[in-house]
């Protein structure tokens, strides 16, 4: 196996689809062995097959059926990875949910406590548990790369998304704290803050339609690959990635700037 990640072992949570699946493929293409973590075994096997196709070789790796909200599952995930592959070089914590219950966005005042608890337990506590599980191995190795997937909702709250925003702000806070702590052991913790991404997560928003313009999962995956292959003397702090929208102009623009734009177009 060749590539910048040859010989490296990468755990990807939320690997059954979306950003996790695309990232597993990108890391495998760069030579890493993939531990695909998620709740649905069939989906994990699909991801592994895609990763092997991307690698163009029979890369070592396995599917680990686990629930990120379970401390035992996360501990077992790390133990099995070290048993079977000898080390843990990379963790991509991409498992996450937008809402716990059907029915679409709700004002905070109408949000059942169960909804709040499930979103926080999955996104924030789950990220904490996966990070915590891999750290002993990475600290022993005195090297490692963790990328936690937050969101632009980690920087700015959005109406009807209180639990999701709170969980993503929390991931950023936890990751910044852990970055300061884990760097002493040579472990680099970075947090990616994507805007809307084309994934199945939007089904949880029904009946509200998905955003008009979203990032492709492959773009997010390539950015995560960039983060874990950055030279070891550098770190990107909470990079924000959003769609670059080349699209219609605001309605008022023609009225205000139309003459100027037209003149420029003719003379240029």
């Amino acid at each position: 196996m060749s590539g910048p990640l040859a010989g490296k072992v990468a755990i990807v949570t939320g690997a059954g689809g979306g950003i996790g699946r695309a990232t597993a493929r990108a890391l495998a293409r760069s030579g890493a062995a993939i531990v695909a973590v998620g709740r649905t075994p069939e989906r994990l096997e699909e991801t592994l097959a895609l990763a092997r196709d991307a690698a163009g070789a029979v890369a070592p790796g396995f599917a680990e059926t686990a629930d990120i909200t379970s401390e035992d599952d996360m501990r077992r995930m790390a133990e099995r990875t070290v048993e079977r592959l000898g080390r843990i070089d990379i963790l991509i914590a991409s498992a996450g949910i937008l809402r716990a219950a059907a029915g679409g966005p709700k004002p905070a005042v109408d949000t059942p406590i169960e909804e709040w608890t499930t979103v926080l337990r999955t996104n924030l506590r789950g990220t904490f548990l996966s990070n915590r599980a891999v750290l002993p191995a990475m600290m022993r190795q005195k090297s490692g790369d963790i990328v936690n997937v937050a969101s632009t909702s980690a920087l700015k709250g959005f109406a009807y998304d209180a639990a999701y925003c709170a969980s993503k702000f929390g991931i950023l806070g936890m990751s910044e704290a852990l970055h300061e702590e884990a760097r002493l052991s040579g472990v680099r913790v970075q947090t990616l803050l994507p805007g809307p991404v084309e994934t199945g997560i939007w089904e949880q928003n029904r009946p509200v339609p998905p955003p008009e313009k979203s990032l492709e999962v492959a773009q997010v995956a390539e950015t995560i690959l960039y983060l874990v292959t950055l030279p070891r003397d550098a770190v990107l702090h909470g990079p924000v990635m959003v769609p670059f929208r080349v699209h219609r102009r605001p309605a008022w623009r023609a009225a205000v700037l139309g003459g100027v734009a037209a003149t420029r177009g003719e003379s240029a």
Partner: protein
Amino acid sequence: MSGGAPLAGQSAIVTGGAGGIGLATAQALARLGAAVTVVDVDADRARAAAAEVAPGTAALALDVTRAADMERMAAAVLEAHGRIDILVAAAGVLRGEAGRPQMLHETTAAAWDRVIDINLTGTYFANRAVLPAMLKAKSGNIVNLSSTSGKKGLAYDAAYCASKFGVIGLSESLAEEVRPQGVRVQVVLPEVVDTPMLAQNGPLFRPKEMLPADRVAQFIAHLVTLPAGMVLVNPVLGVFRAGRRAGAGA
């Protein structure tokens, strides 16, 4: 991973291209196949840098603080290459006058003006000059250089911090404005970088750990080669201080 030259056929301008991040960026873009024009206020240094970058690299001795110079820059590159695909506005200074860092009340208005003129107004003039060509082409990549000092003020660095906060404001505003026409404006916030600019601090305040200029250059090259559908917003490129306790020096 990729085999070809991703910037083949593209024309790139780097202001402040004779040293530090600018020179390293000119080299990185040239390695990716771009035809680079190095712009620096010092003619000899511009020529020397261009010779170092790649055969055929053009050098222009122009001053970013003069709007007319920046317009000449755009005109000269358009005449030579017929297009401007990339602008990296890397010209910058740390202090307006020689000497050690000073308290705000001790700094002269002239020193303040010089820092703002080069770092902020110079970035504006350079951006402004290349935009007509990019808007006409309905494509283009601009990368402006801010700093972690563009997010948080540091003692004894008021003018520099003000200029770098300003570069972010300018860049965010411009990014929103020209996005509909396909021009992508991004701004980089590096932490301390090992460049000749730091010498303006005198022998004091030389950090032990710094990013190599090439690290920033590689990142800028990444920004201008991102897929068309995405943009990185105000990325902060920091030093990864593995194994160092805060304040322990080392």
